[in-house]
């Protein structure tokens, strides 16, 4: 008897993870560690727990390669690269969260509206989303910068707005399927208020995976956009470090063969964005598998 009970029991989280292919497990572990590391480094940099003063110049040790004293070397005025990379997380951390928050909140709103009441809101939401999708992000951001001010929060607010369609479309498609399921019908028939059905049965029980994926992808993209803009000179301005403006500053030395100054922050971008991409894709794969 007990055997049957055990067989019928839902697998625990650990068991489910163990059943994953190795590739996905590695990707997930890497992604989660990167996300945790970014949070930790951000907190350290805010609290001032840095190996060196990120602004202290040392003209006797310029363009140094990694050494015991400077773990990741120094830039062209002798500033410690590791400390600057750590402080560089501040350039995207809060703005990135803002952009993710905006895209998820409005994405959920529009997704639910279009998914639950397709006849009433489907068309208007569809047009609104296509409108947002028609504008290339970077171009729109540059226009906003020119019209208003080059503030990184404003920029990533625009990024968040332009990410609404992706989040909304994922949720809408999911809800369109869910709406026809019997337990949603049953909940409605039992007199559960619609807002409760939406919040609990749709968004919490079936949408949180999607939300998590969108958050992960959104954070990776926020980093790429922030660094690109800072590289172009419109985001975070020197002497405040951003991984993007650090790459740009190392340009002249790069072409002369001193590759390290530009490469160190570029690798920080690569490893971080890769982590978010891998995590998002692993989660998405798992979700698609579950739906199939």
């Amino acid at each position, binding site marked *: 008897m007990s055997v049957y009970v055990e067989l019928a029991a839902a697998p625990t989280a650990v068991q489910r993870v163990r059943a994953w292919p190795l590739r996905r497990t590695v990707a997930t572990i890497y992604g989660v560690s990167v996300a945790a590391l970014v949070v930790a480094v951000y907190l350290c940099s805010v609290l001032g727990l840095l190996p060196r003063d990120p602004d202290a110049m040392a003209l006797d040790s310029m363009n140094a390669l990694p050494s015991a004293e400077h773990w990741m070397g120094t830039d062209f005025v002798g500033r410690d690269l590791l400390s600057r990379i750590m402080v560089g997380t501040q350039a995207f951390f809060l703005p990135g969260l803002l952009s993710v928050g905006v895209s998820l909140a409005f994405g959920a709103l529009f997704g639910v509206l279009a998914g639950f009441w397709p006849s009433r809101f489907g068309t208007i939401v569809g*047009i609104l989303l*296509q*409108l947002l*999708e*028609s*504008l*290339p*992000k*970077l*171009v*729109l951001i*540059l*226009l*906003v*910068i*020119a*019209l*208003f001010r080059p503030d990184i929060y404003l920029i990533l607010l625009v990024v968040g707005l332009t990410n609404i369609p992706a989040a909304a479309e994922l949720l809408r498609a999911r809800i369109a399927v869910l709406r026809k399921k019997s337990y949603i019908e049953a909940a409605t028939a039992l007199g559960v208020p619609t807002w409760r059905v939406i919040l609990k049965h749709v968004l919490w029980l079936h949408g949180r995976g999607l939300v998590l994926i969108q958050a992960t992808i959104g954070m*990776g*993209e926020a980093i*790429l956009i922030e*660094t*690109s803009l800072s*590289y*172009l*000179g*419109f985001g975070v301005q020197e002497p405040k470090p951003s*991984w*993007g403006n650090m*790459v*740009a500053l190392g*340009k002249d030395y*790069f*072409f002369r*063969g001193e*590759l390290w100054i*530009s*490469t160190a922050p*570029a690798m920080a*971008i*690569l*490893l*971080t*964005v*890769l982590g978010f*991409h*891998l995590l998002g*894709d692993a989660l*998405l*794969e798992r979700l*698609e598998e579950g739906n199939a």
Partner: protein
Amino acid sequence: MLKRVARALAREGMRTAVLFLLVTLAMFVLLSRAPGDPVSLYVNVQSLSPEEVEAVRHELGLDRSLPVRYGVWLGRLAQGDLGTSLRSGRPVAVELWKTGWRTLLLTGSAMALTLLFASITAYLAAMKRHPVVASVLTAIGYALSGLPVFWLGYLAIYIATTRFQVLPLMMGAESEGGSWAFFLVPVVVLGLGNGTVSEVTRHLRTHLEGVLREDYIRTARAKGASLWRHLYKDGFVMPLSSLLANKIPYVLGGAIVVEQVFNWPGMGRLTWQAASDRDYPTLLGVTLLAALVVRVAHVLKEAVQVAVNPQLAE
């Protein structure tokens, strides 16, 4: 089939017209919300008397209500009058015409390269015939998607100049000779480094795996028919056309960065320059043109999909 496609084109064309109207409206609202007196863009306000400023204001139509101004602005837009660049003093339309084709060339070729790389990787991964090659290509795709495109550009320039001595380092306003390497390097950098490679590959692979499980594919395999002939429509044409339309905005954005890295005298550099100078007429023109490109890609995608799958014609 022609009739079907024509109908789809007409429908999507209508939708695009409506959307474009909304895009211009959004742009107009954005413009009118911008801080600063627009008069100061055209004349030096300090050197004029209040009456003269009023006269200029009237001349520019700024004393009329917002809807009227929108109508006038839209009317000018319809005639191709995008205003005058604040920086060069030339009409924005002329500036866009001079630089736009270069950017479209760059973006189009880069997009083609992205899709080619993704197709090969996804096909190998989905067929499970060369697992090692597929894994290596997938890993490269992920690495490329995380690498900032500007650093990739630096690396390409560095390798090309020091190792092969092929690339004239800085591309002047008028390209000398038009060597192929010259064009190829930015295309490769943008095509592989625009940040969408891994996503496009993953999407395509999932799609291909789904199609390969279909009964008709199994039948085709069983009877020894050409797999490609049965696969290409549903497995490649459909997803590639929609990916092309969806990812064009990203690649256009990446073109701004890549043109900056390579001194490519296209629309991206124009955009950068305009953003530095806060030259909004130019930026507005770029935004509208970019939106038009994205919409045209959508219309084409719709036409291709309807041509391939009659069920989508409604």
